[in-house]
């Protein structure tokens, strides 16, 4: 059995970030995440070394994607090697106006793919650190690459956290600590939503009850809002299951009445998902919207055969 076969059989995990989705081996995880939807990069590594690097940039309106691809290849591997690159046929050929692949003939080395997505008008460069010659990059990783239009809802899946955002919502900040992953989402009207996932819940709840997870707020929130005094039970329907949780209301401190940009009230919801063994916490001024966002958290963990959002 080859290395590629083993990785395919070991059920790859889905990585979805800033509109890109890519299936990667489960042992590869992000170690560096940078930038935003228009310009950014992501580095994946296994326990031993860096394995895959992604870099993307919004293409200019007048720029020629083919010329950019050629330039990017030359910058990465040099002029002589870039001349050996071939056109690579992506499964969805209409989506990509440029798709060029360079295979390092004598690994260890770097395999480089550059492409231009018509959906988002972004240029993408992927560098695969190949330890030995296998077909993983060309046969498994690249065919799984997809892009999402800026006007469409986006799926996100990084580490164990996955969620869906509507078209006009962007990830404003993220904090990925081991076992405690949180993101801040902002829409065009500057409405902020906080999503947080803590796991494993069996350990987190042994440390402190769900009510403590609900009421223990970040320092930035504590500065602006009174603490939650009376959490009340609530529930959330997620793909046919009912999650039990708690609901609390944050009230802005009275002396900050003049801060109109800060919502007077915010709802905080915390749910225990026993099937995934995770605690999901959300905070927003718009409760229906927050419930809708929370109902999509963990979409990538839905078993095969069930409908994803």
């Amino acid at each position: 059995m080859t290395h590629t076969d083993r990785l395919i059989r070991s059920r790859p995990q889905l990585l979805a970030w800033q509109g890109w989705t890519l299936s990667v081996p489960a042992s590869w995880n992000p170690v560096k995440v940078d930038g935003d939807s228009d310009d950014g990069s992501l580095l994946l590594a296994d326990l031993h070394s860096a394995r895959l690097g992604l870099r993307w940039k919004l293409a200019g309106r007048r720029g020629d994607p083919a010329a950019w691809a050629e330039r990017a290849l030359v910058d990465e591997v040099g002029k002589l090697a870039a001349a050996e690159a071939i056109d690579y046929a992506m499964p969805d050929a209409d989506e990509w106006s440029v798709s060029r692949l360079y295979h390092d003939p004598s690994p260890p080395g770097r395999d480089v793919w550059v492409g231009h997505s018509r959906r988002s008008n972004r240029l993408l460069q992927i560098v695969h650190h190949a330890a030995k010659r296998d077909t993983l990059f060309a046969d498994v990783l690249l065919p799984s690459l997809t892009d999402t239009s800026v006007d469409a809802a986006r799926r996100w899946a990084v580490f164990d956290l996955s969620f869906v955002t509507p078209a006009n919502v962007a990830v404003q900040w993220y904090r990925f600590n081991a076992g405690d992953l949180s993101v801040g989402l902002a829409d065009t009207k500057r409405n902020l939503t906080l999503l947080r996932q803590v796991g494993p819940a069996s350990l987190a709840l042994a440390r402190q009850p769900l009510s403590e997870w609900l009421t223990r707020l970040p320092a930035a929130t504590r500065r602006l809002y009174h603490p939650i005094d009376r959490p009340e039970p609530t529930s959330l329907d997620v793909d046919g299951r009912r999650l039990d949780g708690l609901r609390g209301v944050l009230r802005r401190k009275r002396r900050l009445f003049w801060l109109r940009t800060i919502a007077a009230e915010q709802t905080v919801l915390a749910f225990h998902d026993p099937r995934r063994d995770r605690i999901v916490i959300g905070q927003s001024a718009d409760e229906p919207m927050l419930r809708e966002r929370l109902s999509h958290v963990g979409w990538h963990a839905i078993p095969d055969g069930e409908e994803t959002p």
Partner: protein
Amino acid sequence: MIGRSKKPTLTNEQALAAKPVRLVDAAMQPKPDGGGTLTVSLRPPDKAKWLFKLPTGTTKTFEFDAIGVFVWDHVDGKTSVEQIINRLAKQYNLNLREAQVPTLLFLQTLMKKGLVGVPTEKD
């Protein structure tokens, strides 16, 4: 710094392949929440025994959470750090990276406290 020998540093590969061993002979007392407490007897430092006189029977207790107990149980001199990470990830359904970071940090803490050591080639 003058007069201070440089501590040996491990590469990532060496750290993952290392098989940590326990440096104290103490039994972990389990707690109902899955964690445990480890009570070790203290001894004065070798170089300045006359300065730091400790009463006999002085002990220090370390509190471990469930993950800490899991890691401690696998520190046996036979299991490598990479194996501990893989087993922890499997046990708690964690991402490998999520398991790697706390495991390495925890082992470093245990090494600083003198509870765990990593045998070098000279040993």
